[in-house]
């Protein structure tokens, strides 16, 4: 499904308003099998950026009876998404599922800082240079904006595609409740509780990764996921650095091109044409390089980043299962103790049965989830790597054409210009 959007956002320092219309289908390929079920279709067609807050318009189209209307929209903030995610994580029922990772907070820090620096350096550049740099920054800002909308959208779409999670009550509230959700959001106590839980979890992490699992499948998954997570985290960071360097090179072309134009303007020798053509070429090149950088970012860096978060979610599932196992073992010990003391045996037996049930359920659904996760991951990687390679080839070919045209023009004008130089004397 193609999502088209009308995006309006006011820029922080300069208060520039943009209205852009574009077709978005990019980051969705990070996670496949989304929005296939037409009974519940979700998208984010619109978003507004004010100062630090981004307000998303969540639009739902549904044929399900559980909703009051077939087509409706609400306005949500990033914090609302986090609330929804955390609520799902803390729901016992979903312990055996991989909860889709929460979308990261919108981060406009980088383009904002650059915009600030640009403003400071305005005096040192020509007007043309400044305009181009500003355009570039605005494009970057837009890209960050696009990305954040997409990650939020994907989060919701993964929920709606999941057989269990799509039926969650809180999810429904999120989609439907036409008032501000801040009332339902975590209050301080809950937050503290959540924080505490995270601390305990990391202790578990240390504890659990030491215990060897009886079940081969889970043992393998555990080893694999732990290792893979650290590697993919590293790769994401390195890919990000690489993409940023690429952008820096593209930006340098802007400055060089502008200065060459200034020199060409003053020049009245045969060099003038060469300089102008060279400057023109660099201007075109920097656009291509910029696209190479942003394509690389979307297809590679974002892919890695997304799956890093997804693997964290898978790890969380493993921890929950491990904790259930620990609970079961504890209940066993309690039962033994109770039997020894002949006190509350029935209760202990019931407890033990419950724990075992929970653990088995977790294991069963966990296995299903993890297997499908692997399949999903492989497909996504394949798609993105192919697309990245194809785009790189396309851009490089374009560069070659641009260069060759320029060189040809120069060579022919070289002869022409030589004649002029001679003639002038």
């Amino acid at each position: 499904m193609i999502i088209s959007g009308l995006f309006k956002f006011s820029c922080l320092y300069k208060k520039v308003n943009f209205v852009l219309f574009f077709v978005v289908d990019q980051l969705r390929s990070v996670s496949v099998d989304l929005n296939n079920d037409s009974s519940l279709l979700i998208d984010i067609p619109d978003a507004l950026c004010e100062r630090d807050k981004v307000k998303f318009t969540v639009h739902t189209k549904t044929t399900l009876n559980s909703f009051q209307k077939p087509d409706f929209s609400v306005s949500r903030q990033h914090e609302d998404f986090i609330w929804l995610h955390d609520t799902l994580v803390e729901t016992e029922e979903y312990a055996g599922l991989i909860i889709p990772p929460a979308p990261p907070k919108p981060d406009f820090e980088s383009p904002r800082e650059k915009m600030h620096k640009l403003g400071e350096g305005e005096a040192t550049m020509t007007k043309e240079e400044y305009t181009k740099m500003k355009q570039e920054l605005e494009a970057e800002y837009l890209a960050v904006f696009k990305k954040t909308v997409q990650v939020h959208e994907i989060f919701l779409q993964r929920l709606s595609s999941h057989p269990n999670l799509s039926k969650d009550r809180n999810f429904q509230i999120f989609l439907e409740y036409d008032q501000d959700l801040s009332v339902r959001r975590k209050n301080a106590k809950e937050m503290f509780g959540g924080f505490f839980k995270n601390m305990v979890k990391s202790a578990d992490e240390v504890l659990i990764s030491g215990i060897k699992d009886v079940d081969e499948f889970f043992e393998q998954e555990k080893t694999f996921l732990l290792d893979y997570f650290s590697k993919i985290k590293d790769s994401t960071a390195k890919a990000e650095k690489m993409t940023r360097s690429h952008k820096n090179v593209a930006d340098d072309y802007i400055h060089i091109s502008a200065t060459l134009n200034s020199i060409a303007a003053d020049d009245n020798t045969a060099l003038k044409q060469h300089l102008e053509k060279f400057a023109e070429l660099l201007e075109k090149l920097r656009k291509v390089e910029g696209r190479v950088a942003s394509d690389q970012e979307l297809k590679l860096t974002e892919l890695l980043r997304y799956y890093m978060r997804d693997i964290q979610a898978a790890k969380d599932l493993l921890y929950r299962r491990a904790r259930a196992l620990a609970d079961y073992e504890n209940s066993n010990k309690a039962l033994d103790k109770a039997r020894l003391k002949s006190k509350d045996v029935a209760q202990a037996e019931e407890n033990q049965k419950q724990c075992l049930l929970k653990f088995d359920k977790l294991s069963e659904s966990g296995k299903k989830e993890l297997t499908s996760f692997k399949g999903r991951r492989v497909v996504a990687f394949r798609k993105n790597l192919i697309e990245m390679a194809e785009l790189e080839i396309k851009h490089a070919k374009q560069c070659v054409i641009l260069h060759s045209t320029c060189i040809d023009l120069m060579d022919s004008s070289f002869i022409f210009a030589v004649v002029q130089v001679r003639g002038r004397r």
Partner: protein
Amino acid sequence: MTAWEPPDRPRSRLAYCCPEKMAEDREPPPLADAVQTDFREVEEGEDLFVSTVSTAEQLSPTSPEPASFPAEDISTNSNGPKQEILLDDDQEDLFAEATEEVSLDSPEREPILSDGPSPAITPVTPTVIITPRVDALFDRSLDEDEEAEENGDTFDMQITVSDPEKVGDGMNAYMAYKVTTKTSLSLFSRNEFSVKRRFSDFLGLHSKLASKYMHIGYIVPPAPEKSIVGMTKVKVGKEDLSSAEFVEKRRSALERYLMRTVNHPALVKDPDVIQFLENTELPRAVSTQALSGAGILRMVNKAADAVNKMTIKMNESDAWFEEKQQQFENLDIQLRKLHASVESLVCHRKELSVNTASFAKSAAMLGNSEDHTALSRALSQLAEVEEKIDQLHHEQAYADFYLFSELLGDYVRLITAVKGVFDQRMKTWSKWQDAQVMLQRKREAEAKLQYANKPDKLQQAKDEIKEEIEEWEAKVQQGERDFEQISKNIRREVERFEKQRVKDFKVVIIKYLESLVHTQQQLIKYWEAFLPEAKAIA
């Protein structure tokens, strides 16, 4: 015809070296009659020249017959002497292409100066007249002609600086470079020879050339800069990448410096240059050290010059000089800015290369850890591709630097040298003016003496004053001659410089573009090799 004796022109060295060629020069050009008529038709004459360049080359080398130039139909300027200079230049250049051997200081040219006011027009050939056929010929003959102008005989000289070797230990250590010259010029005793030189030798050479030629208006190419940090690292014996890069950068800079120096028609014939290239042993140029007596003297002079520059207010009567000075000022600023941007590009590309390499390693580890076999293989392949790409970026950064950035750095320094000769001209003018002022004073003193009333001392004083007046009259004349000479030289030098600049930049731009194309083509190759691997993930 020659009422006015030309000033102390440097006699044609060519005449001394190759007397036989001078004889050949006496034939009038075959096209002299075409130019003889109306000077206004010089445009067509130009065309004829231009279109017959190839044919002229096949004919025996000729030089212009000065007398054939008409004196009528010539617009005049108020600057008498400068006009003649202009004509001289024009004529040189006008006929330059027509001949294979052109001596810029040929003695027959001296009578030209007396030929009354010269045309101020620089004829412009409408390029439409040039036929395509000639274009092709031009292309072929271009280099030969350009080089032919620079020297009497066909320029054939190749200098390479290579094999940097560390000599000595500790703080007294230095790098010795092998300077190899390959030439067919008769100036040198052999066709191929090499010597060992150290950095201070190069500086010494430059210092000698500058003191000999700067004050008469020759643009002496500047030597590479000293670098305390770089050299200390080398001396200390740090065998790392940065000191290797420093040595390479310096080696390349020294090579370019020598090539530029010998490309100058006057400098290549200088005995110091020849000695530098040929002699096995060279007296150590101690005076190039910063703290030596000569070094300190240099600093003092520099300060004095800076002060003078501010105080001398020259009456510029020649618009050409004013225009050119302004042009070079602007170019200086722009080139510095461009240089800074390119240096930033080099830096970022190096960063990109490093980051790509580290990503490649990370991707390889990720591939190892991946349990899906096909995906694992694809990730490893991705790592390999990225590694190759990082090499590419590294090479491109190298090209960015050595082709583009170093050229800009060289030109920033060259333009400083150009500005230097303009300053020298100002100094020369100032000296001339000062001499005039002194002469005036002496004349006033003489006049005063006439009305003095001391008969006994009068005669002696009168004689003295008369002597002094004569002395200063001579100085004034000399000052004027010097000023004219330097102005003429500068015009010629600037023209040569501009031509060289155009050529250098064009060549570099095209080479640089070709390096960029190469990088992109390699990228295509690598990604196309990767694509099937990615598709193979099942």
